[in-house]
Structures are given as structure tokens and as C-alpha cells.
């Protein structure tokens, strides 16, 4: 495991957000430093996915209060593509199928778009193919999935591995992975976890959004945050995940009034 760094990468303060008419996030505080792995856990409907979407700039999430500072920039002022350019990556819970757009074409377009934003030179078609092949082998992704339309006809596990492949290619500083473990059998989970672990670096942080503790057996978090009814109601280390596994989310299903400070342990 990497030693938690000191550089503040992401700072979320008193974040309130709604989706449609419904208020979902009701005051989230979260600090992520370089190299740290955070797990956001909580019962269904607690706002985990909404938090992930808010960070990436999903148009359905309306921020009503608070702020999100990423690498010193106000995320609210940045378009989703600009956030990606700055190294923020969202692994989707439900990766979107894009008919008619070949996966390979999409991946290269994404990589080059991100490289342009970072002031790096674009990757040639030949170099890209070699890069893609090496990364896809790592995740045991079949060649056929690369020539097919994006996510179209992929199994659940293939979609999730494909998300991790995108993460590996785009080389983010902060990866927010929303339920990347859901729908995976144990072999696929190990494969995905290995892929993610190989991406861990002192200057790269992970936020794992997950309902179950299972994933955290393979990717060990530095911090665990429990989300309930739009607030973080408990914080702890990796042992908190085990406790949740043993005791369930029962105590967190209600709407608690307490609010826990960002670095509280």
C-alpha cells in the first residue's frame, strides 16, 4: 500500500445536490489527498452514485450548495470533458452503449482528446494499437470487444473491465469508480481489482463507491466513509468496512442528523 500523501487533491465542502425535484446530497464533506484510497459505502439510495456523478459533472445532478475543489480548481466551473482532461475519471456503474461507434475508435478519440487538453502530442494509430493491445491483455479483454461498438453486446463483467481499460488508458490522477464490483463474479472481480491495483501510485487517488465490502478485500482502502440519506455519518479505516459487512447497514437506513467532520476517524 502507498503511504497517504499530503497534497490535497480533492476537497468537497458541505455539498448539497438534487436530481430533479429530489434532494439527494445534504452536506457532504470529503478530502482526498494524493495516493489515498477512499471507500464510500452506504445503503441503496444514500446518494453514493449521485456524489460520483456530481464530481464528474453529470447534467442530471444539480449542485445547490457547497463546493468541490479539485487540484485547486472549482469543479462546478468545469465541463465534464475538462474535468477528464485534468485527470478526473468516473468509472460508470452502468456503462453506456454507443451503437455504431467502434470501441477502438472511441478509445483513441478519448485518449487523444485528453492528451490535447494536457498539452501532450497525440498518439498515432499504430502506436495506439500497440498500447491498446498491451493494456487489453492485462485485463484479459478479447480483441473482438475492441472492434465492436462501445459496450454494445458486452456482458456485465466485460463492461466493467472495459471501464477499467478506459481508466488505464486515460491515466487519471483521481479515479472515482462507481460500483465497479457490481455484477462481477469472483474471477472477474480479481481481474478488475488487479487492474486497479496496478494503477495505484503515490500521486494517484481512488474513490471506490461500493455497496459491499467484497471489493475492499482486494483493493484495501485507507479511509472508509459511510453515507446515509445524503450525509457522511461515519468515517473510519479499513476495519469499518468489515464491521459494516458483519452488521449490515441497518443502523444507517434511518435519516440521522449527525454530520461527521471531513477527516474525523
Amino acid at each position, binding site marked *: 500500500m502507498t503511504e497517504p500523501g499530503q497534497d490535497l487533491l480533492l476537497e468537497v465542502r458541505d455539498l448539497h445536490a438534487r436530481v430533479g425535484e429530489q434532494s439527494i446530497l445534504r452536506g457532504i464533506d470529503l478530502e482526498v489527498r494524493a495516493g489515498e484510497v477512499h471507500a464510500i459505502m452506504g445503503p441503496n439510495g444514500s446518494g453514493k452514485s449521485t456524489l460520483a456523478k456530481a464530481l*464528474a459533472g453529470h447534467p442530471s445532478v444539480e449542485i445547490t450548495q457547497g463546493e468541490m475543489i479539485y487540484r485547486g480548481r472549482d469543479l462546478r466551473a468545469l465541463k465534464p470533458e475538462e474535468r*477528464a*482532461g485534468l485527470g478526473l475519471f468516473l468509472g460508470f456503474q452502468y456503462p*453506456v452503449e454507443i451503437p*455504431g461507434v467502434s470501441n477502438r475508435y472511441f478509445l483513441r*478519440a*478519448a485518449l487523444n482528446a485528453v492528451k490535447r487538453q494536457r498539452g501532450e502530442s497525440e498518439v498515432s494509430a499504430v502506436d495506439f494499437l500497440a498500447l491498446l493491445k498491451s493494456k487489453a491483455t492485462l485485463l484479459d479483454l478479447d480483441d473482438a470487444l475492441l472492434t465492436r*461498438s462501445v459496450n454494445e453486446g458486452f456482458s456485465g463483467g466485460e463492461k466493467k473491465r472495459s471501464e477499467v481499460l478506459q481508466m488505464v488508458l486515460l491515466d487519471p490522477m483521481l479515479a472515482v469508480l462507481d460500483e465497479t464490483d457490481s455484477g462481477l463474479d469472483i474471477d472477474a472481480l480479481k481481474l478488475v481489482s488487479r487492474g486497479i491495483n496496478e494503477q495505484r501510485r503515490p500521486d494517484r487517488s481512488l474513490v471506490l463507491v461500493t455497496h459491499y465490502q467484497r471489493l475492499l478485500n482486494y483493493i484495501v482502502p485507507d479511509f472508509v466513509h459511510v453515507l446515509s440519506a445524503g450525509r457522511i455519518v461515519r468515517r473510519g479505516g479499513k476495519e469499518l468496512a468489515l464491521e459494516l459487512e458483519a452488521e449490515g447497514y441497518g443502523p444507517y437506513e434511518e435519516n440521522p442528523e449527525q454530520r461527521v467532520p471531513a477527516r474525523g476517524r
Partner: protein
Amino acid sequence: MSMVAASSVTPPLLAPVDQLPELGASWASRLRDENRERFARLGLPAADDEAWRFTNLKRLRGASFAYDPNVAAPPAPELPGLNVPEFTLVNGRAELERLDGFPGLQVTSLATILRQEPDSISATLGAGADTTRHRFAALNTAHLADGVVVRVERNARAKLRILMTGPGAAHAGYPRILILIEDGAEALVIEDHVGAEGFTCPVTEARVGQSGVLHHVRLDRSGGMAMHFGLVAVHQERDSRYVSDVMALGSRLSRLDLDVSLAGEGAECVLNGLYLPVESQHMDHHTRVSHDAPHTTSRELYKGVLGGKGSAVFNGRIVIHEGAMGVDAGQTNNNLLLSDQALVNTNPELEIFADDVKAQHGATIGQIEDESLFYLRSRGIEEGEARRLLIEGFAGVMIEKIGLEPVEGVVRAELARRF
């Protein structure tokens, strides 16, 4: 030459008889006379005609066109990279008497055939186009004079591009194509309408013989003020295959009727279409697949991308006749609307008079989905490029089906230029 006002008391759009050449065969003259009489009697479809409910002909009614096949047409752009014999019709008039040097492929001007060997087409010319149902086909036949007859001989393989240029602004053209695919022959025919600025009223009749194959690519690349009202009528014999790629890229106001008769057992047709109206373009596609024989198959997929004030109609009729058992028919129409002012009317019509058949249809009208757009943008792809990717993905499927890179390139360029 004479000006014919659409609003005058003389039958609208009909050129005076003395403007038309003598035809070499009495049956052909009769065919023309019958249709002159028919169009004079019926005229243009009325505003309350169900088949024309969504296509307003006001623009056509108010216009007048000169009929003069001999006037020069604007030059047509090339189709670079396509290494296929070409035959050109200018305002419907053949540039050459015949195309020589391609074994198994006979390409002859209609006027030449009617002069030299009219009997060779007396049973086929006019046999496919139903001029009772199609008023514009009657109008075309009422001007029967020239065109092209393509014959692909038994078991031969052939490719041909028919280049149709003109008519220029304020002129009318009535091109006529007859394609005869003999038993076991295979052909690719590209019907390329380029650069028209006036009123084009073309009719293509095709007959595909037993076990024959015709791949028919039809491009409308007419100019932005052109009006285009066409009919393609196809007759298929036993175990034949007809594949149609219709690409509607041009014209201000257009309608294409595609009639396919699956007359022989085991015949199959695949009808693909793509329409891309923008600005104030209107594109209407009416297809009619008639399953006349048992065990015939039809597959149909039309897609539209509509921008600006563009509008479109898709009307797909499938008729399965009594006794045509084991028929398998499928029809899909998908539309992508890119502006609030774009409009599409889609309407499947299934008439099934047989048992033991499979017939499916489906239609969608949608916009670019926020979720798809966000997915691409979250990967760093800028919004405009993300939109283009999604549009290309939607339409690209139809373009790839053509299977001819130079033609695909033309369509892709049009797509990129528009959206």
C-alpha cells in the same frame, strides 16, 4: 421549347405533344399517350390524398418548368475512386447510343432500342411502374422519349454507374431507366442523381431474373432548390435477391416511392435507406413490399437524421398476399432529431392475408441521449465532437452497408457537412 405553367388550364407540367419525339414503336407511343391522358385527367395528388398527407406540393404547384432535354446541364461532380463503367443521362437524354466493351453488359439508350429493337423491351418497359397509383410515374411516362436500358446477360457479372445530370433551374427532366437482370446474373447499378436544380421526375424499373442479384445504390445529390419525385419499381423472380441502398442527400423537396414485388418463391429483398434533411429540406420515402409468392423474405431498415427545419416522411407498406406462406418480413425505421423544429412522420402499414408468416416492424424517433453524450464527454471528448461521434454512429451503420468506399465517402462527407 415551351413554358408550361403548373397553374394554367392546360394540364399542369405536361409538355405539348409537339415537343416530344416520334417513338419507334407503336406500343410505346400508345403507352405514352395513355399516360398523357391519365395525368391530364388525374393531375397532381390532391391535398387530401392520404398518401400525400405529409408532403406538401404547394411549392411544385406554384412553379413552372421548361421541358427541353437538349439544353445543357450543369457539370456533375466526379465520384473519385469508383472504377465502374459510366453511362450519362442529361435531362433524361442519353449522351451515347450505347456503351461497348463490357462483356455480358448491354447498355443502350432507350431511344436507340425503341428505334432498332423495340420488341426486346415491349413486355418489360412500363410493366413494373404502376402509373395508376403513382401520378408522377404517369407524368414521367407521358414524356417517354429517351433514357437507358441496362441488360445483364444470363450468368454474367457487371457494374455500372448511371450518372443523371440536370435539369437546370426552371427546367423539368423525365429520366427513364430499365434494368434487366437475366437469370443467374449479378449486377451493381449506381443510380447517381447529381446537381439538378429544377424538377426531376425519374422512373426506374428493374426485373431480377431467377437467382439473379441486383445491388442498386440510389443517390439523390441534387441541388438545394431541386424538386425530385421518383419511382423505383422492382420485380423479382424465383430465388432472386435485390439489395437497395437509398441515400437522400439533396433536393429541396423530394419523394421516392420504392415498390418491390417478390413474385417468385424464395426471392429476397434488402431495403436500406438514409435521409439527412437540414435547413428546409423535405424528404419523403414510401416503400411498398409485396410478398406475392411463398417463402419470400424482406428486410428493411431506413434511418433519418434531421436538423434545422428539415422534415421527413417514412411510410413502409408490407403486403403479404393470400397463399404466400412462410413469408418473413421485417421493417425498421429509426430517426434522430437534432433540432426542435425538425419533424418526421413515420408510418408502418402491414396488410397480411396469409397464415404462417413472420412480419415485424418497429419505428423510433429520438434525440441524442444526454447519458450517451455525458459518457463520451466524461472521457475528455469535447461536446461537439461527442455529438458528431453519436451522429456518425447512428448513420454510419447505413453508410457501411453500401460496401463501396468511394460512395461511402460521398455520404460521409455529406453527413459531416450537415451536422
